[in-house]
Structure formats: C-alpha cells, structure tokens
C-alpha cells in the first residue's frame, strides 16, 4: 500500500475504527514511513483538539427552568381543546353535521342564484345593445316609384340594421329571450323584388351586411334584364358628394342594377366594412 492509500485510512486508524487486518497494514507502513507517521500524529492532535470542545457548565437553575417549561407545555397541550371539541363541546355529532350540511346547501344556493342573476343581466344588456343598433340617422330622401330621387342625386336609403346575434343562454328554452327580428326599412322593402324577402334575409345572415345582401339579391333578380341588355350589373362604390353623414359615421354609397336605387351604408368611423372592400376589389 502506498502513502496515498495510507493517508486515506489515517482518519479511521487514529480512532481505532479500522478492522484488524487493515490496521496492521497501516501500522507496518507507519513504522517505515516518517511522512505518514507525521500525518498520523497530526490527525491525533486534531482529534484531541476536537475533543476539547466541551459545553459550558450549566447550573441547576438552567435545568430546573428546562423541566418547568417542558411540564407547562405538556399541561397546556392537555388542557387545550382540539378543533372538534371547540366546535361541539357538549353536542353530539349529528347536530353539528346537520348544521354543516345546511350551511353548504345555503352557500350553494346563493352561488347558483348569483350565476343565474348575472346571466339575466347579460341578456338584458344584449337586448339593449340590439335596440340601440336600430337607432340610426333619419332618412333624408326616399326614391319614388318614378325612379327619381326626391331630393336630387345621392338620395339616401335608410341603412338596414344588422340582424341581432342569437343570445346563448344556460336558461331553459322557455325563458330564452326572443331573437328580435330586425325591422325591414321601408326603402329596402320597396326596392326588393317580390318574393325576394326570404332570400334577402338569408343573404344578410350569411354576409352579415345588409348592403351586400341587398346587392346580391338585386343582382340575382335583375340578371335576365342585364343579360338582355348586354350589361352585367356592377355595383360601384362611389363617395357621396351631396349627403352629409351623421357625426362620427362613415357613409358609403353603392349603385345597384336599378339606376334609381342607391344604397348608402353608414358605419362607425373606426370600422370599415370588409364586404364593401371585397366588392370594390372584385371590380
């Protein structure tokens, strides 16, 4: 065994923690190696140094205080009621359990009521929003049957309102708020060909844009005339020159196949109707 191995065994050797065989090996090496012998001596001194680490002299007052604190802790723990004893000191378990169940039922009922109440409030607010959407700027001119707009060019047609979104609710069907059918503006009704109302409503639901829906329906119904004339209806988007849009509203005017009919679409300034852009792009 070389010095490196011996040095690793010295910490155990100096305190007699090696088995007899290895202790004998170390002893033999130490007899022959002065360096390892010096290291062994250092380890012994280190152990003696460690053993000098003795606690201070604690007097009887210290130990009396320790015993008293332990005893008082034990006494307090024995006197202190536990949780269940605090809840039901003299009652039985059944009244306590019944009271706990009653509290649970009340709390659960209040939570359900709050949830339904919130849903009802949301429904009311949705209904008010839809009603507000129908309040658009008044019509300034309605084209007559002769095809001439009463007030000159650029006469407005009342922009039709968007159909309200169906309201989803967790309530039973009997209490679901009825979907408000949009009031079809008179101008649209006059323009729509006979029998096209259902189709118009379908197009509005599909495109969510009454102007585009009206355009599609009119184009579909006026196609034979256009084919005969050799022209295809091309709805255009032209900026209005004579009309003054409502404050904070953007006005878009569209021509239809019927030259006497123009669609003027009013939208809030911050939004652009993508469908109108689409019709422009297609042209």
């Amino acid at each position, binding site marked *: 065994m070389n010095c490196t191995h011996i040095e*690793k065994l010295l*910490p*155990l050797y*100096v*305190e007699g*923690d090696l088995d007899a065989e290895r202790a004998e090996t170390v002893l033999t090496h130490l007899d022959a190696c002065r360096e390892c012998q010096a290291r062994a001596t*250092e*380890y012994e*001194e*280190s*152990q003696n*140094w*460690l*053993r*000098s*680490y003795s*606690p*201070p*002299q*604690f007097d009887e007052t*210290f*130990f009396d*205080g*320790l*015993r008293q*604190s*332990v*005893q008082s*802790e*034990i*006494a307090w723990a024995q006197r202190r009621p536990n949780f269940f004893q605090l809840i039901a000191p003299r009652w039985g378990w059944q009244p306590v359990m019944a009271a706990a169940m009653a509290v649970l039922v009340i709390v659960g009922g209040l939570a359900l009521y709050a949830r339904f109440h919130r849903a009802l409030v949301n429904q009311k607010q949705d209904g008010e929003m839809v009603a507000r959407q129908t309040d658009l700027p008044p019509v300034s001119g309605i084209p007559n049957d002769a095809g001439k707009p009463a007030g000159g060019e650029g006469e407005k047609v009342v922009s039709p309102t968007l159909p309200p979104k169906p309201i989803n609710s967790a309530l039973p069907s009997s209490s679901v708020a009825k979907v408000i059918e949009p009031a079809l503006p008179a101008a649209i009704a006059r323009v729509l060909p006979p029998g096209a109302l259902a189709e118009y409503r379908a197009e509005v639901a599909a495109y969510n844009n009454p102007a585009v829906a009206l355009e599609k329906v009119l184009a579909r119904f006026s196609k034979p005339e256009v084919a005969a004339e050799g022209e295809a209806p091309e709805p255009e988007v032209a900026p209005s020159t004579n009309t003054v849009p409502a404050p904070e509203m953007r006005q878009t005017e569209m021509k239809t196949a019927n030259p006497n009919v123009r669609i003027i679409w009013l939208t809030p300034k911050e939004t652009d109707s993508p469908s109108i852009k689409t019709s422009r792009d297609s042209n």
Partner: protein
Amino acid sequence: MPVEVAEIALTANELGLGESVIENSAPLARLIERARAGDLTAFDQIITSHQRRVISTAWRMLGNEDDARDAAQEVFLRVYKHLNKFDPAQEFSGWLYRIVINVCRDQARKRGWRGMMTSFEAEYDAGNLELASADDTEAAAMLSQERVIIARALASLSEKERAAIVLRDLEGLSTEEVARVLGSSQTTVRSQICSARAKIKLYRDRYLKRGLRGSNT
C-alpha cells in the same frame, strides 16, 4: 422510586460510567411505563436523568445555549408525545439521540448555516464561551477562541457528517450505535466519520497557518 434512581445515578458517576448504566434498568423501565400512563412525576424523573446528555449534544450540534435549550425542550416534548411508540426492547438512549439529532437538524435548517456561524461569533463576543473556572485570563481567552474555531469547523461539515462525528467522537458512541441512531449502515457511518475528521484536520491546519502568519507579522 426517586431515591432508587438517584442512587443508581450516583453509583454510575462514581464508576465514571455516566448515565449509560441507567439504560433499560428496572427503574427506567418502570418510569417509562408510569409516564405512558400519564404520570408527569415519572416523566419529570426521565427528564432529570437524561437532560445533561441532551443539552450537551444539542449544544455541540447547534453551538449556543439558547438554541440548545429550545432544542432540548422540543426533544422532551416529542419524547412525551411519542412515548407510546417506544419499543422497550430497544435502547432508550439510542431512541433519545435520534430525536435529538432530528430536532437539531430541523432547528439548524430553520436558522441556516449562516445563522449558525453568527450565533457562534455572538456567543464568543458575549463572553459566553469562556470557561467558568479559568483563572488565567489569557488562557481563558485562547480557549474561548479555540471553541469558536472548533464550532466553525463543525458548522462547515454537512448535517450527516456533523451528526456522525458529534455522536462518535464527542458523545462516545460506538460506530454501531451511531449507525443505529442515524439509521445508516456502519460502512456509511465510517465513511462520514472519515470525511468529517479529514475536514476538521484541514480546518485546523488552515487556522494554525493563519495564526502563525499573524504572529510572524
């Protein structure tokens, strides 16, 4: 009963055997039975017969009087709480040491290693580490400083190394007893002790070198 216990303790001290002779003797077994039944007087006697050992071990593990007292109080409270689980076939001191080591470990973790170092230095600065009976002021100061250095050396060890070396080299337990207390194998304990002794020696060597450098300047 108290007289009987006191006489045995006196005899053990005269023989230099300490408290270990009381181990599992008839008086201790009877005290344990009575304490289990709720006899606080009996439990008080159990505390009396083991308090020095508990305080000594806790002080060596934690390094200051206040923490040692808190740890000792917690040790005896746990002993009382779990006395019903104590198996009379095993040694009471081994079971007690296990509780002491666990409590000291929990307390050291709460404080952290830095806290432990601070407490040793605080003890030194407060003069609590001086020997009570030292007449030579210079020698007493040196001994106090030695204690601080040894405390630092112990604090630099890992939890398991510190527990192993305190129980083996300072409390005098055998490797087998230390293994039983720590719940490890004897091989593991020997390895921990070997590592701890090497680190203590290295710490001492560095301390001595620093001291020599200081004296040479």
